[in-house]
């Protein structure tokens, strides 16, 4: 056991295969205490902080933020005795009696990257030599070939028996225990799970031609994809330091397959759910916002607003918040047998980030002054761009604005975030010919698109709400005087 210890990403929630590094809370060289939070990891179930397993000094961080890491992969190495001078490469420190380490087996575990879905609930794996497997519960550890003891008399590398568990016990005559003579290819049988078989069929790959790299010599998803891409089937060892990022490479079939996960998966689920449960209606309104833009300029010129980011979106947000006060029903949730109308507006702002679409929201935005709203929006965008938006910031939204104008388009028919009843698309502000005081003049014009849940919001209410937003944007000063 050496003084340098590597910490493997544990299974944080009963049978998870991977986690995404959200944020490192320590950096190389930091001195850390036992149980000090070192990293935030998001799994399919939760975003959690992982406390340090050992006190010491951070020696290396193996995966940058934003990387998705397989359970069991080392993510950080810690020098547990930094005061003891430089580290020899082949460390033969005295074993500390109290803290067993995952040991060098952690590296071995990475060597054979477990295939997606390689969880084998029925397998009985011996304890990993020299320590525990990092995966403890759930639906069974992901057994990799590296962690399995070979069967007696089995040809090395050759596939192990088909039986994943002892044969069921017959009531009367005692069935002999399965002998270790069957193998994965017996009788032309190829080991692969149904989804992998389906994938192979879809990609036109003959399973019989492949050498499996999975448990018991079974063929994994990666084996099939590798074959389809025309690359050799030999498993390339992953290096610890290089993050296994998805390379945008096209195979022989000139198609690229991107696994659906993370934000993309969540977005897809939310959008489909919303689109096919809430009956959407979308209305449009084109507004002359010249006066509003001038008002914004005047705002920017004010001393106390000098350092504030003032954008047209700020006015739109204000318009929405004021309009909600006049039509509270749009700020509600369809809850089956009742409609929950909210007295607070958690205003969602859809943001395009490197991780994909996320919609953080400003809590109780209706209570904020314009200045507070501006600060909150700036903070929100900054946090989102940095990829640091917390799950709490993304839940509880009641009404959303999507600023499609930044992409230079005029409008769209947005899909409601689940649980919300209205979403406003704010298009680009353009100089357009517009009839102003009886003459066609170049004016700054934008198009608003409002989608609403027709179960709650009727055409009349939706129209009035949109009209009010438009009225505010056409003449904010007058609307403020009239409404507040």
């Amino acid at each position, binding site marked *: 056991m050496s003084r340098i210890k590597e*910490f*493997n990403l*544990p*299974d*944080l*929630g*009963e049978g998870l295969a991977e986690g995404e590094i959200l944020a490192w809370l320590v950096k190389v060289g930091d001195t850390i205490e036992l*149980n000090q939070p070192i990293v935030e990891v998001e799994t399919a*179930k*939760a*975003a*959690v*902080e*992982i*406390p340090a*397993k050992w006190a010491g000094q951070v020696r290396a961080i193996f995966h940058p933020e934003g990387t998705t890491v397989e359970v069991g992969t080392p993510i950080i190495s810690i020098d547990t005795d930094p005061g003891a001078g430089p580290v020899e490469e082949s460390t033969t420190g005295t074993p500390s009696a*109290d*803290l*067993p380490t995952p040991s060098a087996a952690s590296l071995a575990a990475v060597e054979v990257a477990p295939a997606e879905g390689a969880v084998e609930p029925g397998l*009985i794996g*011996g*304890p990993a030599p020299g320590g*525990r497997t*990092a*995966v*403890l*519960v*759930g639906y069974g550890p992901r057994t990799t070939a590296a962690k399995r*003891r*070979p*069967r*007696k008399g089995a040809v090395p590398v050759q596939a192990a028996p088909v039986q994943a568990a*002892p044969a069921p*016990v017959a*009531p009367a005559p*005692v*069935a002999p*225990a*399965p*002998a*270790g003579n069957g193998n994965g290819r017996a009788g032309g049988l190829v080991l692969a799970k149904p989804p992998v078989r389906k994938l192979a069929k879809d990609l036109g790959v003959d399973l019989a031609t492949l050498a499996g790299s999975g448990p018991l010599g079974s063929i994994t998803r990666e084996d099939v994809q590798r074959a389809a891409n025309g690359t050799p089937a030999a498993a390339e060892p992953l290096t610890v330091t290089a993050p296994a990022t998805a390379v945008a490479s096209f195979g022989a079939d000139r198609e690229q397959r991107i696994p659906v996960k993370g934000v993309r998966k969540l977005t897809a689920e939310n959008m489909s759910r919303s689109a096919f449960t809430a009956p959407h209606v979308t209305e449009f309104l084109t507004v002359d916002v010249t006066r509003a833009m001038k008002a914004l300029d005047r705002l920017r010129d004010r001393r106390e607003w000098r350092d504030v980011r003032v954008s047209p979106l700020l006015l739109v947000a204000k318009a929405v918040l004021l309009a909600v006060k006049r039509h509270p029903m749009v700020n509600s949730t369809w809850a089956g047998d009742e409609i929950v109308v909210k007295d607070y507006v958690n205003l969602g702002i859809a943001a395009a980030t490197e991780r994909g679409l996320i919609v953080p929201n400003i*809590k109780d935005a209706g209570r904020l002054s314009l200045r507070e709203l501006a600060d909150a929006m700036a903070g929100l965008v900054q946090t989102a761009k940095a990829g640091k938006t*917390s*799950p*709490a910031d993304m*839940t*509880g939204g009641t009404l959303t604005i999507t600023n499609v104008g930044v992409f230079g388009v005029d409008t769209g028919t947005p899909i409601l975030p689940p649980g919300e009843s209205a979403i406003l698309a704010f298009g680009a502000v353009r100089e357009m010919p517009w009839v102003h005081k009886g003459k066609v003049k170049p004016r700054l014009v934008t198009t608003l698109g409002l989608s609403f849940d027709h179960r709650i919001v009727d055409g009349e209410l939706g129209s009035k709400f949109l009209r009010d937003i438009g009225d505010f944007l056409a003449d904010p000063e007058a609307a403020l005087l009239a409404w507040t």
Partner: protein
Amino acid sequence: MAKGDPGVTGRGRRAAPRSRKGATGDPQLVQLLTADGERIESATGPDGTEYRVDFTDEEYRGLYRDLVLVRKLDAEATALQRQGELGLWASLLGQEAAQVGSGRALRTQDMAFPTYREHGVLYCRGIDPIMPLGLFRGVDQGGWDPNEFKFNMYTIVIGAQTLHATGYAMGVHMDGRTGTEDGEAVIAYFGDGATSQGDVNEAFVWASVFNTPLVFFCQNNQYAISEPLERQTRVPLYQRAGGFGFPGVRVDGNDVLASYAVTRHALDNARLGQGPSLIEAYTYRMGAHTTSDDPTRYRIASEVEAWQAKDPIARMKAFLTKQKIADDAFFAEVDEQARTESVHLRERVLAMPDPEPVTMFDNVYPTGSPELDVQRAQFTKYMESFEGSAH
């Protein structure tokens, strides 16, 4: 309709706005120590019962020590899970007072039936706190002897233990071990979510009609995993007891003194043969449901902060300080003890041996069975077919 028509008043009453907040409000909360650490001399339950406690300074300090130790050990277990050393952990954070108060109210002969979160009660029963960690590490089945400690095994199935407790309590009653000052009582722990289970309602019925010496102790921590209380009930939970024919009381579950007083009273009623009762300990789960859960996805930070202000340990500390029952030296000593014990716990958990797979056959039946022996033989042979197998 005419004035005085009974239908009118009846309808009028029903039509009166009934706030859904009714379930989450503050009716008749028995409290002996406020969130600010102010001591209340006595409190009256919904049925007129007077609750009070009379502890010595030493006992007050003891309760504080329990609360701190239980929280610290729980935090260590959570950390161990995050480090891959436990498969799962259900933290009791925030519920220490309900557990320590009720746990300390138990007498030696009383039997407790826990869920999977009663680490604080387990501690009060004198069981080595490492025991549940072995369970959640997957290296043993729980490890303690329920008969020795009068504390049943953890029950993962929601609400199932209330039926076990009811049956056990019926046995106690039928054996004639009730009806005296030294009689036996049984306590069944469960949560607010479990009250929606059929098992719990069946237990209520049986416990009631057989007049069992049973205390139903519901820790209402406001969430059934992610489902809030208003999805469980529209009346305060303790009022459900009335429909089953036994008394119910709501106690401030973050107040260790009131939790103790109310439980002690209910247990004494039970041991005297007065039948079952329901205690709703009104509290809050400050952490996640289990380590597999992310509470930020279903509850807002301001709610957690509001409950943070009602912390069971902070109020006890404030009380001890104000009353000069304890000083900084005492608090430091308790913290140091908690730290030492948690480190010790960690070391022992990491040193727990992995069991041989074949031991899974060991405790299925007290005397084995022919069929199981066959399975064991087969399994042993199978394991021996691997290289490097020692057995």
